[in-house]
């Protein structure tokens, strides 16, 4: 009856067409309690009500109920959940330096981040606990053990390459993967058929869009 969806605009609470408002309110309470520590008090979520015309008089009660659970409703969306695509999860890149590429000639250590709106090239290792946030592609000329988020501006055409690709987490646009490349083999990760695939450098097979 109720479900949370992750979208470009953040978390959306989708309420499907219903008969009894009390049931919906109970379902929302249960769902939020289930998610436990995921929410902090005052977190903002969007509310989407299926068949909003029919239920428009219930909206104030729904909003009040959600507020009662410690969450704020930032916006009310109309339409059907089909339009809420799970693929559109996006990380906002703030304080970025404009430019084509960024070259970093050092090892990125735990706790350090490299944030850039374009492509990022690292000459050194990316250690566990370090993170790269790139608008475009990421190349690590060394061992990559940390977290790599690529294609945050450019989208799924971005690639991630490393001499040894063993990341804690990889993200290209909205796709996330915990996969690791073959140890010691220079590898490239890219999006193919709606998921991230890792291929050794000498067996690369990009799906050509041009």
């Amino acid at each position, binding site marked *: 009856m109720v479900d949370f969806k992750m979208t470009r605009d953040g978390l959306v609470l989708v309420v499907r067409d219903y008969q009894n408002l009390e049931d919906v309110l109970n379902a929302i309470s249960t769902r939020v309690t289930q998610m436990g520590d995921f929410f902090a008090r005052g977190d903002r979520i969007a509310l989407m009500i299926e068949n909003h015309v029919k239920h428009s008089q219930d909206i104030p009660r729904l909003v009040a109920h959600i507020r009662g659970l410690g969450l704020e409703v930032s916006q009310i969306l109309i339409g059907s959940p089909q339009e809420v695509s799970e693929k559109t999860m996006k990380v906002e890149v703030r304080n970025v330096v404009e430019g084509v590429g960024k070259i970093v000639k050092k090892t990125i250590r735990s706790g350090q981040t490299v944030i850039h709106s374009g492509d990022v090239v690292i000459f*050194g290792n990316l250690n*566990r*606990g370090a993170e790269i946030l790139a608008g475009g592609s990421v190349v690590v000329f060394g061992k990559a053990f940390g977290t790599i988020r690529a294609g945050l501006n450019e989208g799924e055409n971005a690639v991630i390459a490393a001499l040894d690709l063993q990341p804690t987490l990889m993200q290209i646009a909205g796709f996330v993967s915990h996969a690791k490349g073959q140890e010691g083999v220079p590898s490239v990760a890219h999006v193919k058929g709606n998921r991230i695939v890792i291929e050794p450098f000498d067996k690369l097979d990009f799906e050509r869009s041009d």
Partner: protein
Amino acid sequence: MGEVIVVTSGKGGVGKTTITANLGCCLAKLGEKVCLIDADIGLKNLDIVLGLENRIIYTLIDVVNGKVSPQEALVRHKIMKNLFLLPASQIATKEMVSPEDMKAIVKELSPNFDYIIIDSPAGIERGFRNAVTPASKALVVTTPELPSISDADRVVGLLENFGFSDERIKVIINRFKPHMVKKGEMLTAEDIRHTLSLEIIAVIPDSEEVIVASNTGVPVSLNGSSKIAKNFENLARRVRGENVPLENDFETFSKGFITTLKDFFSKLKRG
């Protein structure tokens, strides 16, 4: 002007205090005038390891509050007459001291000493900043386990943010267990050097002597019969700029007569 070195790690319980105490003792033995500063305010240990807890009159907090000068607060070691300790207060907190205070104290002390060694608390908060700010060189202590190495890596990153270049940061591997390395169950010194991409200045084996020494208040390096005292001496010599090959640290590990016998008999049994 003395050289100011901070001994730090990020993770707790890896042996910062023991290493600080023994490095201090060894440098003092080599004829240097050494001052140790305990920056672990509220959780002080350095005085206990050195066996000086009953001689403390003033602490770092008294210096910060302007009650006494840094020189007046120093405690001289019982055996090593050119080794001094600036003790921490157990009842104060780290927030009562600022990095600027530490800088001022070290600046006042440094003309009188060859080496000032600061024992940093665990963590990366205020206490860490207090300990690191006055230093010009850093010794990062790690044990050969991933959580410890990961924290060491984080600390090296922070040191870089504090303006330390990689040449001024050296790694000490503590609690090294050669028999586990041999079986492939523990990371080797080389693995750690690769992960941290920094020079390793000393490898110190795991030893029960250290536990006994901490309880009696006589650091192992002052105990003539101790085996790992040699490792601390190697460390001290390298800190002074002497060229002592890292291989020398592994001499301590060479098998004793009894172990060789045991190995021989276990082989006989199997064969």
